[in-house]
């Protein structure tokens, strides 16, 4: 029986969000809050593994009270329990402080039932760092397996798992001892349309909510803004590239045109400080 914890976050929908042109920060009121899309795949994978090997799926989030909505979304996907840590002391946390707070919560969840596997989404769409997952793994002294696109096998008795990690030019097969933490790519699964049973369960569900005082052995200096050494010196919205050229014709013609174009503009490929491209 596995106990899987999926770490999730409620994020503003960055597909819609507007940037404040004066402060260069995200205008969070301009976009609805959604479950981080990568995290939906993390929860779905947890639910699939539960179906394959039996067990329990818990989800964990840190956030303000409205983030309960994101937990309910996970219950819709099929999670069994939801935990939320919510406290003013957590506000302003960077990835270091976030991974610390989530670790403390996971320790508490472990007391209820030992954790065999932690799953995170690849990254959040508002922060784009992908650091919190590995941060938790380091703090809990678990192997961090990032960019996982497939769970080949979990051997519960012998306590190991085999997963496929996505690489730029293929994939890597890794065997790890348990417990471990993995962060998953979107391609690991498709999140199906939730069943009515799960919808009703989610509509009725109230997660367990912990404040800092409910957690054990917490060093307050490591929480929130105080515990965040990251300094954001500048944020700006990238300018949209314009122009571009469409190459027309059949495959052979297009290839020919592209090749000529690349040769013509080889300076584009010259590495700064390196040697020019030869042909």
């Amino acid at each position, binding site marked *: 029986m596995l106990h899987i914890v999926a770490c999730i976050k409620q994020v503003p929908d960055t597909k819609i969000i507007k940037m404040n042109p004066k402060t260069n920060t995200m205008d969070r009121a301009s976009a609805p809050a959604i479950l981080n899309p990568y995290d939906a795949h993390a929860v779905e994978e947890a639910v699939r593994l539960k179906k394959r090997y039996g067990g329990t799926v818990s989800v964990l989030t840190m956030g303000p009270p409205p983030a309960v909505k994101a937990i309910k979304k996970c219950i819709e996907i099929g999670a069994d329990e939801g935990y939320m840590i919510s406290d003013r002391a957590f506000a302003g946390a960077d990835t270091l402080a976030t991974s610390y707070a989530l670790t403390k919560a996971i320790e508490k969840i472990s007391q209820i039932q030992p954790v065999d596997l932690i799953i995170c989404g690849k990254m959040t769409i508002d922060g784009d760092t992908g650091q919190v997952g590995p941060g938790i793994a380091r703090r809990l002294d678990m192997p961090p397996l990032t960019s996982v696109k497939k769970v080949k096998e979990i051997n519960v008795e012998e306590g190991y798992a085999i997963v496929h990690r996505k690489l730029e030019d293929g994939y890597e097969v890794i065997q790890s001892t348990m417990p471990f933490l993995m962060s998953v790519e979107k391609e690991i699964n498709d999140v199906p349309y939730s069943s*009515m049973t799960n919808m*009703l369960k989610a509509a009725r569900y109230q997660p367990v909510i912990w404040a800092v005082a409910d957690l054990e052995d917490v060093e307050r200096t490591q929480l929130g803004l105080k515990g965040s050494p990251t300094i954001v010196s500048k944020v700006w919205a990238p300018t949209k590239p314009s122009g571009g050229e469409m190459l027309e014709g059949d495959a052979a013609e297009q290839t020919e045109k592209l090749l000529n174009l690349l040769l013509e503009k080889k300076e584009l490929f010259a590495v700064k400080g390196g040697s020019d491209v030869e042909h």
Partner: protein
Amino acid sequence: MSEKFDVIVVGAGPAGISCAYELAKAGVNVLLIERGEYPGSKNVMGGVLYRKMMEDVIPEFWKEAPLERPIVEQRFMMMDKESAVTVGYKGMEWGQEPYNNFTVLRAKFDQWFAGKAVEQGALLVNETVVLECIVENGKVVGVRTDRPDGDLYADVVVLADGVNSLLAKSLGFHKEFRPDEVALATMEIIKLDKKTIEDRFNLEENQGTTIELFGDATKGILGTGFLYTNKDTLSLGVGSLLSGLIKHKIKPYELLEYVKNHPMIRPYIAGGEPVEYLAHMIPEGGYKSMPKVAGNGVLVVGDAAQLVNAIHREGSNLAMKSGQFAAEAVLLAKERDNYSEATLNHYKTRLMSSFVGQDMKKYKDSTHHFDKFPQYFDKYIPMVNKAASQMFTVDGSSKWEKQKKIWRDVGTAGEKFKLARDAYRAWKVMK
């Protein structure tokens, strides 16, 4: 295993939420199903919320509901191409508690309202489409949703699924609506600085204006336009009967573009940024288009029952009232443990003897009348504009001469007779 509820309400708009709220408050196990991402996400109206009927559901709601502005002034603009005759009323009594009515943005308001029903104990499920009613032995016993294991059962199903109610239609309660029974409204929400809005509309903080637009706003096609003030946006829209749009071969958004560029409207919205574009159908067939509203194990409320008073641009208030009456009928049926049409018809009796039914009857011919005789919109409104222009232009001719000219401009004796006849007819359908 499929779950059974006391009541399933389909659609979280003013009618459905009011019904679910009342039932949950009375301790009934009620499920509210909404197809949008959240209640309000797919709901559209020009934006006037009437205080009285809302207050009947939630007393003193204005203290916490997300409202835009209390309306202190209502104007009516009869527009020609480059002119308008405007009448209106502004009163400070509307600016104080308990207020008269408010502008609202439905995406915010409905979400809040549904939250109140949930607080009372209603169960809300979003993003779920009800495909059909489950009918057994001539009785509606539940709904089939588009979700896996999606059949759900209930003693009563309340259809609050909006204009064009496909569920009521599949039960044979009404036919496909004709183009002269539904209007199509398009609107934009235009962002403007709060202060600019207050300056342009002669308002103080926490005061709002509504302007109803007639005549050239819809290029003389039967319909109306509106311009409402929100906190830091304006709602500008036009709606007209589908039949009119079809006949004049005008696309709804062209009508909206036209009114945005109209010289009577342009200055109000200048410099504003459109932040949302919305479109929705409005049931305007009135009393004669009302479907059957009660059956065995089923009730039909709000827009789904065609409860709109087009002349007075009322709908959400009728919807709320109908939701309340439906809840009342359900409670009665529960008490008798009898969910037959005969018992649930209590809803229809209450509805039709209330102001809802009375107003539906009073204006039963109005839309059809103005649709049949387009001269009100395309001839008489320009005539009024011309008359006003002549009367108020100081050009050295006497007022007596002016009056004679205005009367002459109405046309021949035959046309004068026609005007008198049309005035009488209009009075008759509105009286």
